């Protein structure tokens, strides 16, 4: 290698992301432009999503904010008010400190230098955390105990209120207002109030088709982003991810799973758009909302959903089957339930419930499992033993019994946790609690294995901190495993939720849930109303199978030995 050659290489090889982006911004600009267009088309829904996000964040923050006071209250009840106040402060600070540990990395060092102390590196880190925690506590106290709190809540309310207003004022491509399928027949045989005067069935089909077309476009946009990054902005010609993606793309069973999961997720996210009637009207408050229909005398009448639902039940005697209209000319693509509600609406909102519970349970469980497996594999010894004991203790309790017990206790007490999704969040938390030991067990082996690699020693030898070592040198090797177990278990969570609801535990009405549909329809399977239990039953089977297929495919995709022949050939070719 000559010197001039090296110099040329050096100049050419500076391929950092920022530099490449600066040299060739066009593909990225085009890609972002497409995103802007896509978002503009569904701007109303985007704001509705932000609104929901705010609500979730608000709920979580409220929950955490309420705990120090609640614990203080409990302590005050036994040890007196002084002890209670101390407990509130101590627990509040502990909570703030826990939050500050991951956050403090992103806080500039200058905040500590202000104190003017001579600190060691370690002391510096802890000082930053304490400082951040104190600031958090101070802000929280300010909001909780001074008039500032009122102004703060007013500001928050103003923001959420305006987002809420925007979400209903701004148009969306797939909105119910734009492509309406709720209208009534006119005496001359046409339709009134529907999209272009088309029949509700066609209007609904157009809207649903648009939803899936839009979602597919979004997916294509994401894929395009990956490709753009790979061809234009990535310094490396090849990364291990490329192989993973290539293997996944040629796995048809996995692609099938991905497709079904995609449909399931779209169903959940666009539930308001794909349901033929509004859930709020048809399921949650049927007696407060009415609609117009053309009665047999040829007159347009107004009727409440609650009465219309009574006449539209699919209960063996009456049946509103697949792809049909009920007596009030409401389009029911999947028929009605045994209580006369619309099945498609129920199914899409039920998908929302299942997905929320599954994601929350698996997300929390996997997070706990990963953190504990990294800690126990890195520190070994007493940390490992303590984790083994804790997880064994949890696994020793029969999960079903625990779930029933805890859900009854919380629901009887009407605890705030038991309120979202009519017990759905509670269920998700219990699932997370019972599932993490299994997931931790599954990834314990790989974590211990990776912690024995010499690159972990190497990191220690140049002084890398334990936290960063776990993040950079261990976690990436665990991620694949946890992804597989998570996608396999999420099917289990969905089916368990349905099973519990089927038994009358779990999620209470009116929150739509697939298990309750099956429970309601099971006596009519042999009658003309067979669809009531069959449709959600098939949906559950498909979704669970799809998640399993996806998990399998991910496992095959991330396992480099899956195409060992090719790998061997490459090594032989590239050997020194």
């Amino acid at each position: 290698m000559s010197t001039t050659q090296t110099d040329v290489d050096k100049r050419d090889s500076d391929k950092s992301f920022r530099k490449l982006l600066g040299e060739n911004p066009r593909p990225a600009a085009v890609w972002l432009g497409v995103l802007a267009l896509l978002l503009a088309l569904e701007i109303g829904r985007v704001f509705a999503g932000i609104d929901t996000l705010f609500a979730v964040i608000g709920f979580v923050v409220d929950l955490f904010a309420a705990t120090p006071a609640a614990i203080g209250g409990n302590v005050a009840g036994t040890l007196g008010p002084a002890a209670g106040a101390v407990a509130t402060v101590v627990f509040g600070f502990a909570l703030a400190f826990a939050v500050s540990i991951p956050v403090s990395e992103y806080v500039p060092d200058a905040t500590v230098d202000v104190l003017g102390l001579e600190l060691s590196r370690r002391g510096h880190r802890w000082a930053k955390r304490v400082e951040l925690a104190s600031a958090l506590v101070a802000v929280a106290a300010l909001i909780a105990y001074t008039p500032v709190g009122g102004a703060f809540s007013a500001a928050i309310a103003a923001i959420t209120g305006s987002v809420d207003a925007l979400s209903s004022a701004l148009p969306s491509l797939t909105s119910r207002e734009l492509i309406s399928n709720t209208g009534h027949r006119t005496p001359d045989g046409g339709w009134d109030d529907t999209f272009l005067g088309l029949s509700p069935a066609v209007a609904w089909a157009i809207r649903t088709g648009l939803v899936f077309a839009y979602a597919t476009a979004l997916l294509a946009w994401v894929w395009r982003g990956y490709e753009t990054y790979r061809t234009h902005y990535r310094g490396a010609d090849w990364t291990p991810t490329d192989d993973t993606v290539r293997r996944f793309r040629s796995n048809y069973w996995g692609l099938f799973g991905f497709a079904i999961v995609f449909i399931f997720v779209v169903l959940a996210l666009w539930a308001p758009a794909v349901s033929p009637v509004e859930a709020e009207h048809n399921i949650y408050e049927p007696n407060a909302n009415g609609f117009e229909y053309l009665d047999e005398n040829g007159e347009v009448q107004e009727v409440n959903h609650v009465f219309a639902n009574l006449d539209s039940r699919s209960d063996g005697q009456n049946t509103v089957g697949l792809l049909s209209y009920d007596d009030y000319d409401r389009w029911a693509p999947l028929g009605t339930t045994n209580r006369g509600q619309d099945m498609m609406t129920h199914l899409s909102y039920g998908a929302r419930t299942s997905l929320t519970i599954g994601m929350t349970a698996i997300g929390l469980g996997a997070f706990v499992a990963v953190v504990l497996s990294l800690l126990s594999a890195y520190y070994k010894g007493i940390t490992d033993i303590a984790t083994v004991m804790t997880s064994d203790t949890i696994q020793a309790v029969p999960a079903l019994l625990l779930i029933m017990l805890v859900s009854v206790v919380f629901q009887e007490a009407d605890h705030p946790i038991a309120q979202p999704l009519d017990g759905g969040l509670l269920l998700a938390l219990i699932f997370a609690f019972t599932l993490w030991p299994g997931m931790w067990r599954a990834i314990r082996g790989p974590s211990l294995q990776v912690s024995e690699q010499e690159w972990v020693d190497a990191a220690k030898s140049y002084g890398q901190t334990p936290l960063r070592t776990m993040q950079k040198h261990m976690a990436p090797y665990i991620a694949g495993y946890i992804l597989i177990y998570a996608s396999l278990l999420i099917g289990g969570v969905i089916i368990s939720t349905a099973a519990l609801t089927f038994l009358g535990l779990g999620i209470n009405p009116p929150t739509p849930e697939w298990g309750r549909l099956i429970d309601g329809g099971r006596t009519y399977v042999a009658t003309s109303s067979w669809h009531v239990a069959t449709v959600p039953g098939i949906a559950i089977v498909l979704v669970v199978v799809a998640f399993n297929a996806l998990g399998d495919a991910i496992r095959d995709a991330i396992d480099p030995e899956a195409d060992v022949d090719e790998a061997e050939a490459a090594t032989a070719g590239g050997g020194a």
Partner: protein
Amino acid sequence: MVEVRDLKTYYDSGSLLDNRPVKAVDGVSFDIRRGETLGLVGESGCGKTTLGRTLIQLEDATDGEIFFDGTDITEIRGDQLYEWRQNAQMVFQDPDSSLNDRMTVGEIVREPLDVHEWKTPAERRERVRDLLDKVGLEAEHYYRYPHQFSGGQRQRIGIARTLALNPEFIVLDEPVSALDVSVQAEIINLLEDLQDEFDLTYLFIAHDLSVVRHICDRVAVMYLGNIMEIGPTEELFTDPANPYTHALLSAIPKPDPTASRDRITLHGTPPNPRYPPSGCPFSTRCPARIRPDGYEELDDDLWDSLNSFREILRERMRAERSIRERLRERFGMETRFATMDDTYEELFGDVAVPDEVEEILTEVADTAGDHDEAEALDRFNQAFGSVCDGVGASGVDEGVKPAFHQVSESGRLSYCHRHESEYRETADVIEARN
């Protein structure tokens, strides 16, 4: 530059009851001078890697001191340790395991710089490119992944990472043993070039003696956690003083098929480092072991059997018999302990045993047969023990250790009783006994 004094690194067994640690490094003292390459050789499991890891504080020393430019690094913690780590780095044995496959080469080499917040990110990238160039890779390899490289190239990446912080002292833990022979030479030459360019001090751990002879200025020979001999390379290779060095060197294959040098075969396996011998660590297998007066002229085969017999006694002594085994024995059933008679027969069945020896042996075997191994061992030592086994003037095991004797003008040291004036020199004894 590095002064090691009576360094001990023990590994805890982790069991609560039997808490005898594994003595991986058991009292080692030596110096490494600035700019030199000290070789550390010995068979697998003798503690050389542990010693290397302790020197760069990947393991905590159990006892003893390591002075690095006058600072005892076994004492420093926190910030001081973090700062010190820039001075001492390690090249690992297995290039497959020492590089994180999920990071690009650039990220790997850059990480030490990031950890120590060296200058600006742009300067760090520039330095990584320089380092890649220095170790014979291309700057454009920055964005490649380690497993696109061959073993030799991966080791070059590892060396680049080691050099990133400009260390003064580098522990090379068998850096070429996992590589192709053709690549080994390239890496060795690279290491030598880098040493010249950056004034590096190496501790070169290896079991390939020819490589050691090529690269090292001085060599330390290690056995069972102890340094047996340490001195200038050429001198040590041509005129070994310690019996273990003799044995080790005799194992180097000779390209000349007509060469007549005898190979010294060591009997048995190295002792369990949890239970090292009480005297000289090499006493159980030494080809030049000092024999007590009166038995000097016994047959070599008989001595081999006697040594094995002692090892069996020692092993029986520490093996705990479970209740179940005691019961089986009581009822005359077979246990995993062979009876003393069988052992005796196996060891001494086909060697000629003089009467006076036989008398003692029978006595010892009977005592051991009654499960009083300690007593039997004492009796055995009284008759056949020597200073090598830790037997002192009183005739019982006092744990007498050899001392380091200076065996040449260059200051070469050897850890052996043979250098005391009353005993014959090692080379003669080995010659005579072979």
